[in-house]
């Protein structure tokens, strides 16, 4: 009887420990990890080029990665690693996309992914707080890799943390982090010059490209949530 009691107590402790671990597995030591993986491909990155002969808008909805963020102390250990396949960039015109992905421009064959890595959060200002959310304006500092070239970059962003609720579960499982960010890059900084002998940059493609990122991540991987169902 005594042995049975010991077994029952040990089993209860083990089960409680496993449950606690399972509930908190999306928490990092300094906040949460938000997975950028939307089964409905609603996360977008958009680029805009403005030039005298032509304005071009392109987009991709295939951003993946993760963001570590602490809604209680956003400047502490914020980190993000986001990737976009070059071949997913779409301007609406197949021939133009072919050129864009080709060796004369972004060269998807040699440099298949665009990467944004954030390793510091600066100047985080809490602009709105409710019972279930916190919204910040901040500057994210990191490295942007395009065409095989890595450059340091500062990106102003607006970020909202939403606690899990019935409303948030309609979008993604877990707590949510919504991010809106806009920044610009110079094509010359990434050694993107266009085809040799053709002065396209400046005439048909802007020297400066505006980039907008709109994404929402969740603390539970949607693919795992689907498996459980």
């Amino acid at each position, binding site marked *: 009887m005594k042995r049975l009691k010991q077994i029952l107590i040990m089993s209860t402790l083990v089960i409680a420990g496993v449950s606690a671990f399972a509930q908190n597995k999306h928490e990092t030591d300094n906040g949460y990890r938000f997975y950028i993986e939307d089964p409905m491909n609603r996360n*977008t990155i*958009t680029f805009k080029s403005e030039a005298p002969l*032509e304005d071009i*808008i*392109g*987009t991709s909805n295939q951003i993946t990665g993760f963001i570590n963020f602490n809604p209680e102390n956003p400047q502490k250990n914020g980190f993000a690693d986001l990737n976009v396949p070059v071949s997913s960039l*779409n*301007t*609406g*015109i*197949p*021939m*133009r996309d*072919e050129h864009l992905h080709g060796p004369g421009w972004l060269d998807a064959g040699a440099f298949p992914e665009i990467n944004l890595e954030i390793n510091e959060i600066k100047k985080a200002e809490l*602009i*709105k707080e*409710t019972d*279930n*959310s*916190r*919204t910040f304006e901040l500057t994210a500092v990191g490295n942007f890799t395009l065409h095989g070239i890595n450059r340091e970059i500062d990106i102003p962003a*607006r970020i*909202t943390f*939403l606690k899990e*609720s019935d*409303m*948030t579960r309609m979008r993604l499982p877990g707590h949510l982090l*919504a991010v*809106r960010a806009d920044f610009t890059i110079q094509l010359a900084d990434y050694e993107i010059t266009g085809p040799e002998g053709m002065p396209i940059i400046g005439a048909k493609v802007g020297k400066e490209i505006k980039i*907008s990122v*709109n994404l929402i991540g969740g603390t539970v991987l949607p693919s795992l949530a689907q498996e459980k169902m």
Partner: protein
Amino acid sequence: MNRVTKKTMLAAIILSSVILIIWQITGGDFYTKYQVVEEIEKKLDQSDPLLAAGFYGNSTITETIVKNEFRFGLLPTASGIFDKHTIAVTTILTPLWSAVIILQFIWRKKR
């Protein structure tokens, strides 16, 4: 100008006008497209928790959409001769008016 010549010119002018009207109605784009990538103003849903959280702020929010829509353009964007992107204002009007001018020349010479 004889009757046939006049009728040919008139038909070419009418067809050109129709082509240009179609070009304007479908957006007046530079290039022919069957898929459009554009930024539109995002319609905010009052039940969206991000709205209450202040995520959208007070500025106009845009979103980028990709939609299947035909836009007749001035110039083609074809990858090959049989690509549907070959159809454009210039690829229709250039052969049309070239034919009209050649026919005019031939008829004048016959007289």
